[in-house]
Structure formats: structure tokens, C-alpha cells
């Protein structure tokens, strides 16, 4: 199975500042890539996904992510965060040899005024 590494466990950020959440994966085969968000006391919901095509993917709530095959990365970015973006963010990967979804450990984003 592939492994997914989220390089930052906690990211504090001020409102209206940009944020980048880093995700790297290890897989020797082609992959599909996802970012999920979990708001406090809620289940996870999909932010965006990369299956094929353009390596820059736009998602909901102003988030975007860029797939870099050579660096096996899928970093998530938002140019200006809001208080409501406070949540835990999970990177997830499906490799095309077993189709199982593997999650990273999560990055907690705390947005302060």
C-alpha cells in the first residue's frame, strides 16, 4: 500500500493570509489524489480531487492543489483564509493497483483574527 505524508501537523495562520498544506506520497504506480476537510464535530467532505488532466485542480471554498508527479506531491493552497477555514485537512491517495484510499495523518489549520 502507498504511504501518505502530511508534512505539517499544525498550521496556525492569520485571517486573510495565504496558506499551503503539504502532502507527499509514495507509490510506484499511477495514483488518484484527494483533499478532504473535517470541520469541528463533523464528518469529512471532499475539497478537491485529481484524477487526470491539468495538474492544477480547483476545489470548493477557494482552495486549489497542484499535482507534481516528479516530486510525488499534491500541495493544497488558498490565497486568503477565513476564520471559517479552521478545520483539519486530510490528503488521500488511491493507487491504481489496489484502489484502496490511504489517508495522511492530517493537518490542523487554525485561523486567527
Amino acid at each position, binding site marked *: *500500500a502507498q504511504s*501518505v505524508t*502530511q508534512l505539517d*501537523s499544525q498550521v496556525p495562520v492569520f485571517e486573510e493570509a495565504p496558506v499551503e498544506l503539504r502532502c507527499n506520497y509514495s507509490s510506484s504506480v499511477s495514483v*488518484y489524489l*484527494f483533499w*478532504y476537510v473535517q470541520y469541528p*464535530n*463533523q*464528518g*469529512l*467532505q*471532499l475539497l478537491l*480531487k485529481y*484524477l487526470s488532466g491539468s495538474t492544477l485542480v480547483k476545489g470548493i471554498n477557494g482552495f486549489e492543489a497542484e499535482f507534481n508527479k516528479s516530486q510525488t506531491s499534491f500541495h493544497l493552497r488558498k490565497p486568503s483564509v477565513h476564520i471559517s477555514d479552521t478545520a483539519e485537512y*486530510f490528503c*488521500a491517495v*488511491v493507487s491504481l493497483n*489496489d*484502489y*484502496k*484510499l*490511504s*489517508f*495522511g*495523518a*492530517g493537518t490542523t489549520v487554525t485561523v486567527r483574527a
Partner: protein
Amino acid sequence: DVKVTQSSRYLVKRTGEKVFLECVQDMDHENMFWYRQDPGLGLRLIYFSYDVKMKEKGDIPEGYSVSREKKERFSLILESASTNQTSMYLCASSGGGTAGAGPLTLYNEQFFGPGTRLTVL
């Protein structure tokens, strides 16, 4: 709206008890999943099912079993609960092709329930 519901938000059980966690989805999804979520470990797949009466082991199936008798319902069973099974349990479902399409549809977006926080004393 896709809805995945879980039978309890909070559950407290004693060591050795048999525990049932129920999950129901209303979107006619073929695929259903059980994860546990622990701080610093993210989500880990326990079991999944891509069709009624079908089940596949995930990454950490030990100590758990599952049942899928109807398409909309996927149950997680702890035969004899232990303290190391104290965790948040998340159920998810995803759509796919026709029944029997198997794992080829497992990459579709997963819709999650709100979770059950289980404490085993």
C-alpha cells in the same frame, strides 16, 4: 443531499462486550467503508464492501468484523471490545458502476457520516 448516518454519536462500553456500530446511507451507493480515526494517525481503513454480502479487509481488520445484508446498511462489529479500540469510527459510502463492478469504482468521492466516538472502559 447525500446522507450517511451512524447510529450513535457517543458510545461507552466495557471490555469484553460485543459492540455493534450501524451505518446507513440513502444514496443507493454500492461502496461502503469503515474507518477509525486516531490523533496523529489520520484515518485507517478497517473494512469495506463494494456490494451486498461482499466484504474486503482494509489495513487494520484485526478485532473487527462487518456485515452487509442490505445495500444501504453496513455494520461494524467488535466481537470483544478492548481498550485499544477506543477511537472515533467513521463510516463512508461512495457510488460506482453497476452492482458487481467491484473495486474499479472505489476511487469515487466518499461521503462520510458524523462519526461515533467509542470509549471502551
